[in-house]
C-alpha cells in the first residue's frame, strides 16, 4: 500500500496540544475562578472559610445544585434543555416529606428510591414528548415546569412540612460528615463521577455528544436518537428527584416553593462550566464546578459587601458572559483551523 503524498493537515501536534489545553482550560479556569472567589471572600471575612458553618456551607450548598446541574448538562449536550427541574425537585421534596408523614414505617432508603423513580417518571414525560412528538424541549419543559409546579402547589395547599415531621436519621444525613466533608456532598460527588464515567466511556454516553453535535447526521448514522434523548430526560428528572430528597434532608422545611428557579441556576452552572447550549460540547465536571462557582459567588457577595439580592443579577451576568466567551473562542478556533489548513495547502 503506497503511502501517498499527504497534502493537508499533518499532525499539528503543537496545535492539538493547544486544543487539548483549550478543552480542559475551561474546567481548569473556572476552578481557578472558584479558588479566587473563596480567597477574596475569606480575606474579607475569615469566617467564610474557617468557621465550622462557613466551611460546611462551602461544600453543602452547591451539592444539591450540582446534582441538578449534572442532569441539565446531559440534556444540554443532546441539544435540548430541561426547564422543569426546579418543579421536579420541589415535587420530589414534598413527596419525600409526605411519605415520611403518611407512611411512617418506610425505611429511609425506600423513600429515597421512590422519590428518585418519581423524578425519573416526570422526566420520562418530558422525554417522551420531546422525542416522539418532535417538539422543541424548550416549549415542552416550559409547560411541564408550570404544570408540575401547579401540581405541587395544589398538593401542598397551605401546608408545609417541618423538620419535626421527618425521621432523625434522615435529617442526620443533612448534617453528617465524613472527614469534615458533608455526606450529602460525598453522595453528590459519587453520582457526578458515575455520570461522568458513563458520558465519557460508554457508547451511549458518546452518542449523546454526537446527537447534540449534528442531530441530522446522527439520524443518518442510525444512532438510536429517540432512546438517547429519552434517557437524557429521564436522567435529568431522576437527578432532580434525588436532589429533592437531599433537599428535604438538608433543609427539613419544605413548602410549595422548594426548588423554585433552580432550573435557571442549573442551566447557568452548566453553561458557565463549558456546556454549550447547542449541544455536543462540555462535561459534567464543568457543570459541577460551575455549580460550585455559582453558589459560592452567591455566598461571597454579602461578605464582600454586595447585598445578596443581587445574586440573580450575578447569575445573569455570568451566563451571558460565559456564552459570549464561548462564542468568541469558538469563532476564533474555527478561523484558526481554516487558516492552518490553507497554509498547509
Amino acid at each position, binding site marked *: 500500500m503506497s503511502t501517498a503524498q499527504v*497534502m493537508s493537515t499533518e499532525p499539528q501536534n503543537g496545535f492539538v496540544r493547544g486544543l487539548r489545553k483549550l478543552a480542559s482550560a475551561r474546567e481548569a479556569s473556572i476552578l481557578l475562578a472558584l479558588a479566587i472567589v473563596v480567597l477574596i471572600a475569606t480575606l474579607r471575612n475569615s469566617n467564610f472559610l474557617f468557621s465550622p458553618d462557613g466551611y460546611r456551607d462551602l461544600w453543602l450548598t452547591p451539592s444539591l445544585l450540582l446534582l441538578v446541574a449534572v442532569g441539565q448538562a446531559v440534556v444540554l449536550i443532546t441539544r435540548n434543555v430541561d426547564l422543569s427541574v426546579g418543579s421536579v425537585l420541589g415535587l420530589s421534596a414534598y413527596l419525600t416529606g409526605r411519605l415520611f408523614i403518611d407512611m411512617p414505617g418506610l425505611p429511609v432508603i425506600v423513600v429515597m428510591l421512590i422519590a428518585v423513580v418519581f423524578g425519573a417518571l416526570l422526566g420520562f414525560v418530558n422525554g417522551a414528548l420531546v422525542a416522539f412528538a418532535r417538539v422543541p424541549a424548550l416549549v415542552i419543559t416550559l409547560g411541564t415546569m408550570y404544570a408540575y409546579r401547579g401540581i405541587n402547589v395544589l398538593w401542598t395547599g397551605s401546608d408545609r412540612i417541618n423538620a419535626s415531621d421527618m425521621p432523625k436519621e434522615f435529617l442526620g444525613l443533612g448534617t453528617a460528615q465524613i472527614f469534615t466533608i458533608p455526606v450529602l456532598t460525598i453522595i453528590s460527588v459519587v453520582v457526578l463521577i458515575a455520570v461522568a464515567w458513563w458520558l465519557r466511556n460508554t457508547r451511549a454516553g458518546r452518542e449523546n455528544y454526537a446527537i447534540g453535535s449534528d442531530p441530522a447526521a446522527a439520524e443518518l448514522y442510525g444512532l438510536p436518537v429517540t432512546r438517547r434523548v429519552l434517557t437524557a430526560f429521564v436522567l435529568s428528572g431522576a437527578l432532580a428527584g434525588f436532589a429533592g430528597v437531599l433537599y428535604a434532608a438538608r433543609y427539613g422545611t419544605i413548602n410549595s416553593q422548594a426548588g423554585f428557579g433552580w432550573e435557571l441556576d442549573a442551566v447557568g452552572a452548566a453553561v458557565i462550566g463549558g456546556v454549550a447550549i447547542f449541544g455536543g460540547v462540555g462535561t459534567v465536571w464543568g457543570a459541577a464546578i460551575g455549580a460550585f462557582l455559582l453558589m459560592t459567588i452567591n455566598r461571597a457577595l454579602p461578605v464582600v459587601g454586595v447585598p445578596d439580592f443581587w445574586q440573580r443579577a450575578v447569575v445573569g451576568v455570568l451566563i451571558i458572559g460565559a456564552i459570549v466567551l464561548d462564542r468568541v473562542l469558538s469563532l476564533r478556533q474555527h478561523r484558526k483551523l481554516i487558516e492552518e489548513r490553507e497554509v498547509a495547502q
Partner: protein
Amino acid sequence: MKRSQTHAPALELRGVAKAFGQVVALRDGQLTLQPGSIHALVGENGAGKSTVVKIIAGLYRRDAGEIRLNGELVDFTSTAEAKQAGIAVIYQEPTLFPDLSVTENIFMGRQPVGTFGRIDRSRMRSEVESLFSQLGVAMDPDRTADGLSIADQQMIEIAKAVSLDAQVLIMDEPTAALSGVEVERLFAVARSLRDEGRALVFISHRFDEVFDLCDTITVMRDGSYVSTTATADTNPEKIVAEMVGREITELFPKLEAEIGAPLLEVEGLTSPGIFNDISFTVRAGEIVGLAGLVGAGRSEVARAIFGVDGYRTGTVKVDGKRVAPGKPTAAMRAGLALVPEDRRKQGLVLEESVARNTAAAILDSISKLGLITTGAENRAARPWSEQLEVKANAMTTLVGTLSGGNQQKVVLAKWLATNPKVLIIDEPTRGIDVGTKSEVHRLLSTLAQQGMGVLMISSELPEVLGMADRVVVMREGRITATIDREQATQENVMHAATHGANEETEHAA
C-alpha cells in the same frame, strides 16, 4: 477482509424505478458492479445518478426493480441496514460531527468496548492509526472534525467505510472540491481499495478523471440506463454523445443580439482564500459564461457581486456607478439580479406560495402607503407566472410542490419582475427536465437580445459553449482564461478549468 466467493457481481441493479409524486426521477436504473473494479456512473444533471445512489444507500425506497448484493436480493429500508450490508457512500459533502474528534467520528456507535461496556480508547486509537497508515493519510486522530478540509473529511469517510469492511463504496462527485494533489491522493486510495477486491462506483462530470481512474463506464440519461462500456473501448466524445443523445448544437437556440455598452464591470475583486483578482465585463446584449469546475469559486464571486457576501478589495460597477459591497438591496437598486445556485434553499421560500415568492423582490413597487395585501401580490405576480408558463394550480400553490423546472421559472420570474439590467444566473438548468431546459435557454437568449446583460455560471460545458458569447474560466479562485465564442471548445475550456493560467489569458475588456 472478505472477498466475493461467488462469481456474482458485487452489486446489481435491474429495472429500478423511483418517482416523487409526479416527477419521475428514475425510470429504469441498471448497474452491474464487479468486485475489484472502479465503475464510473456518468450522466447529465437530472439523469438519475443521484437517485440511484440514494436508493442503494438505503435513503430512498425504490418503487420497482431488483437489487442484488453478491447475487442475493436485498431491500434496504434504512441507511443503517445498507451500511451493515457493506455499502458505503461518500457524499460530496460528508456529514461529520464537528464537535467530536476524528477517531470518534469514525467509530461512533461502534466503538470497541471492553468490560462494563467501557470504551477501549487505546484500541480505538491504534485502529485509527493503522487505518490512516493503510490509506496513507497523516491526520491527528484526536483533533476535532471541525475545520477539516473536504478532502480530509472524505478520507475520514473512507476510513469509516474501510473499518466497516465495506465491499461497495460509492463516491458521489468526490473531486468537486479537491485540489489536484488531493485528487491524486484520493485516486491512490481508490486504486488500493480496488486492488483489495472491493467494488467502487465513481460519479463524476470530469472525463479526464473518469478515463484516468475507472475501468468501466455506465451512462444514464433522463432517468434511464443507456449503456455500459469498458473504458478502454470508448472515448469522451462517444460518452458525451450517449449522455446527451443528440447533437449539441441543436439544443441551444442562440439568437443574435447586438452587443452594447458595458453594464457590469467587475475589477480586481478579491476575497482572501476564496477568489482573487477577478475582473471581467458584461455588456448589454451579451451572455458571458463563467465556467470552471465545482469549487472554482464562481458562485462565491456571484454572491459577492450581488452583496450576499462581502469582499475585501475590488470594485463592482453597474452602468458606470459603483455598487456598495455587502448589501443585496444596493445591488438590486443598481439593477442587478441573482438567480442563486441552490434553488430550494437560496432562491425560494419553499413553504410560501408562487405569488409570494414571485413578488418578493418587488414589494416596494406593489405597496400603497407602505401596505401590501395578498391580493396585490397575486395580481402583480400572475402576469409573470403566465408569461414564463409556470405550471402550477394557482398563485397560492406552495412553491415546494412544483417540479424543479417550474421552481426555476418562479425564481426567474421573481428576478425578471425587478427589470434588472444585468441578470446573474448560477446553474440555470441544474436538476431540470429537458423541456424546461430549452425554455430557459431560449428565455436567456431573448433577454440578451432585448439588451440585458447576462452572466451565466454553469458547470455544463455544452450549455456554456452553446449559450455564451464569451467564456470566462475560473480555477481555484482565479480567472485562468477568457475565450471568445468562436474559439471556445470543450478542450480549451476544460484545459483552463483544470490547469493554471497560461500566458495567452486576456482579461476581458
